């Protein structure tokens, strides 16, 4: 069973990272400051269950974009593998390679599976200020769906509207 105690909890600043998205391009978390980011850790490209989860998020992408949120998939697969997987599944969002040193970002977020050498199946919704607002650890065989992500994004929107006028815009 996943160890839910070590996954980073809401209220924690999201550890910054920079990871390859293609063999010659990197994505840095803090570049998205100002809008929400959905981080979806998944165990591996190509496994049928993962395919389902990334394919589902691909279909729901326009709903995430309504909240100006960026979706980033992360696994320990390398960028070449991600490229082939994304092309075959026609994914319209980046897949980040937590490949070298292996699983370093997953460890920082408390979602690395030491024994298997993969990440957990875990979700984080990070607000525009870089703070984790929702996290969820799913049993590794269960695709968590997108309902929790959308609720978290809505609650971030609600806070922004109720909060300081410097938010939003």
């Amino acid at each position, binding site marked *: 069973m996943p160890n839910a105690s070590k996954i980073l909890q809401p209220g924690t600043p999201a550890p910054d990272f920079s990871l390859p998205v293609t063999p010659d391009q990197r994505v840095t978390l803090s570049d998205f400051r100002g809008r929400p980011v959905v981080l979806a850790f998944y165990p591996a490209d190509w496994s049928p269950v993962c395919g389902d989860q990334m*394919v589902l998020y691909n*279909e729901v992408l326009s709903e995430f974009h309504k909240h100006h949120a960026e979706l980033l998939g992360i696994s320990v697969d390398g960028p070449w593998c991600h490229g082939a997987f994304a092309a075959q599944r026609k994914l319209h969002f980046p897949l980040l390679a937590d490949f070298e040193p292996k699983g370093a970002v997953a460890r920082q977020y408390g979602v690395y599976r030491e024994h298997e050498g993969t990440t957990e199946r875990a979700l984080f919704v990070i607000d525009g200020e870089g703070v984790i607002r*929702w996290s969820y650890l799913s049993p590794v065989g*269960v*695709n968590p769906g997108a*309902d*929790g992500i*959308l*609720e978290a994004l809505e609650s971030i929107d609600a806070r922004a509207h109720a909060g300081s006028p410097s938010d939003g815009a």
Partner: protein
Amino acid sequence: MTTQQGTLRPAVSVEDHVLGPADAPVTLVEYGDFQCPHCARAHRVLPKVLKRLGDRTRFVFRHFPLGESHPDAIHAAEASESVAAQVGEEGFWRMHDLMYDHQRDGDDSLDDAHLIRYAGQAGADPSTVALDLAADTYEQAVKSSFMSGVRSGVNGTPTFFINGRRFEGDWTSVDAFAAALESAAT
């Protein structure tokens, strides 16, 4: 964020496509995609399962077309709504069965020309269905069904809900699936 994940929202209503008695103790909801091979497989399992339960189960179908993976799935869902609007619920279920039964005939077995032909066989006026597809008359209805699935925690197709809770068990086996429904019935 207090709602439990994997809870059917909204609940089954008169807006739904329903087979079976309204007062059945078990409600089985499927979110399905007419171009999804796993859903076609479920379509071959379900009649046997539903027969075992008899009038203790009502079955509800909601649309969850994965349009990026299955380019004909959205029009297939819209065509079934067009048939339902013209000839009622019996027509919807005939169209539902025809599309799953013919899904694997060939690469084009769910293109518009075929959908219009099946609609005719299901009792609808083919030219009205053709117009509805061209005008995207039922695009919103299908989209709203899809979004209800997203909000309910649908995590692929098919996803089943038994009495409002996402079913994580094995639907590929008649025995296992029927047993899960039996336990919900008591």
